[in-house]
């Protein structure tokens, strides 16, 4: 049967409202349209046809959501493992050299330039992973992919850890004027700066790996 532009729009709207991820949206949309195109012309209402296909082929809309949850669990596990692998690669040669250089730089900045420069280094490496998501956060028309979600979580993790680093010591020192980057031992600020730098670099590799899409 021939599916009209209006019917396609109706189908897109239905899926947009009912599925969580872009992958499911595109794959199910293509599947339903291809199935419909293979049908003979008939008198059934369009929404009845769609419901019939979703029920017969996917086991209903609820099963689509279950399918998404299962897929999300697989992807989350996979992406987290890759991120961890990238992080660990900075503690093995040859990338260990980069880690050593970052350590040397952070220590030099903290000891001989100023503590604030270490803070700047940390803030830059915390903000960089967030940049790819700034425009997406403001775009309501954007349907996230599963990878978007889990990679975004990895990107924002640095911000979460930085907040913990900044505010947790206040609980123990009970001093409102306490400032982590100015008052702790230089070795600790160096450790924190290197941790964020490695996190940032491994995130960039993760992002590049996960979103190398090929659209022909």
């Amino acid at each position, binding site marked *: 049967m021939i599916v009209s532009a209006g019917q396609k729009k109706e189908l897109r709207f239905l899926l947009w409202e009912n599925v969580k991820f872009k992958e499911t949206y595109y*794959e199910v949309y293509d599947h339903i*349209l*291809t199935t419909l195109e293979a049908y003979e012309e008939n008198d059934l209402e369009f929404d009845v046809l769609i419901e019939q296909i979703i029920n*017969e082929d996917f086991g209903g809309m609820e099963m689509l959501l279950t*399918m998404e949850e299962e897929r999300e669990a697989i992807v989350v596990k996979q992406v987290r493992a890759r991120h961890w692998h990238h992080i660990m690669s900075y503690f093995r040669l040859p990338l260990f050299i980069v880690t050593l250089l970052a350590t040397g730089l952070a220590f030099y900045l903290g000891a001989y330039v100023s503590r604030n420069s270490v803070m700047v280094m940390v803030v830059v490496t915390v903000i960089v992973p967030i940049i790819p998501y700034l425009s997406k956060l403001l775009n309501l028309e954007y349907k996230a992919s599963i990878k978007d979600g889990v990679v975004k979580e990895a990107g924002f993790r640095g911000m979460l850890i930085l907040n913990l680093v900044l505010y947790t010591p206040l609980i123990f020192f009970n001093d409102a004027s306490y400032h982590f980057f100015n008052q702790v031992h230089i070795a600790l600020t160096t450790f924190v700066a290197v941790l964020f730098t490695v996190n940032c670099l491994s995130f960039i590799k993760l992002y590049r790996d996960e979103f190398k899409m090929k*659209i*022909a």
Partner: protein
Amino acid sequence: MHSFLRYISLLYICSMSTSPLLKGTLQTIILKLLEDYEQMYGYEITQKVKELTAGEIKLTEGALYPALHKLEAEGLLETFNEVVDNRVRKYYRLTTQGGEQVGSKLQEAQAFIEQLQLILNLKSQNA
């Protein structure tokens, strides 16, 4: 490919069982199809299985897509998108690792079918 799917189809009919039996061989079917046809999309896989088994096996998408996603996560398949008729179509194809595993998966399935035949004595019943 025909003989493998006919074999599965025969078991499917003889055992009067549907999804549980097919589920165990679904990944092998997908890998073998992608070895033969290089790249396919979900709907195409279901139609090809239907065609090769003369309609005896109908893969449900509810089972097919999770299997495809699992194989992709295991690194045996990779995906790419193509825009067809103004819509995004997701194709699956074997990775190098996936290509290397097809043979062993097929052998595993064949061995299982033979053992099952011995246990159920299907050969003599069908002779």
